[in-house]
């Protein structure tokens, strides 16, 4: 680990971290502030929801969510939080080494007296720090909104904490898969299409798995691994899915180190 690279990486990413964090605060606080009004007419709402086509409810994960409870309502918000976090982590993952290659600053960095192992480790740690800062903001704003707007209704704190902890492996998945994909292709010219593709793709896979029923594709998407409604219902993670998630992440990291060490940094072409 090289402290210079770490600092540099933090510095270039802090604006992005700030923007995402602010967006997430607004999303969580404003969305959750309507919970008291929602809960008051919960019966009405549940009646209305019953009339929705089941496919649509499944797509939003509403089929086994009770919107009249704190955690049920939070699960809906959590889906959007997850989507944001997926895109953010994907951005960082796809861009971790590819941005330097596209902007041709990789020549500079890789001719410093540091090994590629050190470079990648420092970059990963810096990105991890950035993600953790975002997480602290998500955790903070969640607790504050739940405390402020719980409408006097009871909720299971441990389950809420479980939900909030799940965003760590969730982010790591997108970070590491993004990274390994960026190292598998020769050059990524723009990071955003890739991260949007991966984020929304994973979401859609999870959403439509409910619609189509038995398709097993959903097993590969973190939106299913850390499905908020399921976690709230079972008050626990689905262990096999969690293990699957961690395994994919670990394989991606190991493969990334392997690929990066052997990577040819091409000149201007």
């Amino acid at each position: 680990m090289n402290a210079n690279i770490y600092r540099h990486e933090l510095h270039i990413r802090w604006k992005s971290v700030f923007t995402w964090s602010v967006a997430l605060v607004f999303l969580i606080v404003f969305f959750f502030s309507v919970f008291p009004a929602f809960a008051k007419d919960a019966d009405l709402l549940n009646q209305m929801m019953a009339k929705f086509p089941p496919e649509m409810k499944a797509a939003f994960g509403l089929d086994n969510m009770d919107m009249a409870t704190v955690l049920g309502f939070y699960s809906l918000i959590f889906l959007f939080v997850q989507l944001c976090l997926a895109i953010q982590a994907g951005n960082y993952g796809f861009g971790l080494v590819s941005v330097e290659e596209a902007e041709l600053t990789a020549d500079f960095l890789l001719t410093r007296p540091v090994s590629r192992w050190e470079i990648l480790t420092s970059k990963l740690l810096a990105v991890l720090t950035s993600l953790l800062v975002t997480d602290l903001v998500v955790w903070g704003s969640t607790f504050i909104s739940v405390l402020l707007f719980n409408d006097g209704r009871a909720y299971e704190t441990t389950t809420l904490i479980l939900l909030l902890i799940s965003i760590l492996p969730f982010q790591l998945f997108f970070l590491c898969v993004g990274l390994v994909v960026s190292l598998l292709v020769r050059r990524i010219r723009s990071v955003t299409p890739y991260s949007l593709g991966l984020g929304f793709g994973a979401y859609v896979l999870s959403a439509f798995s409910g619609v189509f029923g038995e398709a097993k594709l959903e097993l590969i998407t973190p939106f299913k691994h850390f499905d908020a409604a399921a976690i709230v219902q079972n008050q626990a993670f689905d262990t096999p899915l969690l293990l699957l998630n961690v395994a994919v992440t670990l394989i991606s990291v190991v493969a990334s180190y392997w690929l990066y060490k052997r990577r040819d940094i091409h000149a201007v072409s």
Partner: protein
Amino acid sequence: MSIIEVNQLTKYYGKSRGIVDVSFTEEEGEIFGFIGPNGAGKSTTIRLLLSLIHPTSGSAKIFGKDVTTHGPEIRRDIGYLPSEVFYYEGMRVIDLLKYSASFFEKDCTQRMHDLSELMELELNRRISDLSYGNKKKVGIVQGLLHSPKLLFLDEPTSGLDPLMQRKFFDLIREENRRGVTVFFSSHILSEVQRLCTRVAIIREGRIVEISNIRTLQQNNYKKISITAEGLGELFQQIPGASNMQFENGTVNFFFKGDINTVLQRLNGVRVSDVTIEEPTLEEIFMHYYE
């Protein structure tokens, strides 16, 4: 001691050729010229030596250490000026130089300021606001600030005005006098001629000639021009002559071999003018490329 030892180094990008079987050595304190047209493999060779890319086969050693396994160690004492400089656009020049210096264990502040002053580089400007030539100056300062023992210059003068080029050459000579070994890649022969002691010529990925710049000029070819009457028959066939051109009673050609064979033919001819000169590197070079 050999600073650079390259042994049958080969690089293919998929199926397209980078370099093939390149071998040469550079001794300590040399300024080694590496010349060839665009796409001949000059940059590929440098990038292999810096382990930015990995060889398909063959090996290379710098300071006696293998470049693929001892990269970080070797790069502590290497300065590199790429042909096209790209730096973090949002940074200021001073921040970039400090960032670069922070990777080396010595204090480079004084030298950083000395070099920037010499190259007339404004330290407080943003990289994104710099012209191509000014970015190149950042590259020069960045490449030299940690007092490397070996310098890789990849077409270093492009973008610099003639005044700056001269300053730059003086700087390189000064560094060389202090014992810095220089690997100088270029397609501009006059600058190689000005600076280098030995030169390798690369063409289509292969080394075609490695020689001392003096021997290349002196022993190989003479450029001969003779004005006299009746040259046509006399100079039909001279072994060792090439590029023969007749024009208004004057014959121009390059000659390699015993100069007496030419002189003997002139015996008894009334010559109005003769010049025998060393060809420029340019002309030798063109010869290799025909």
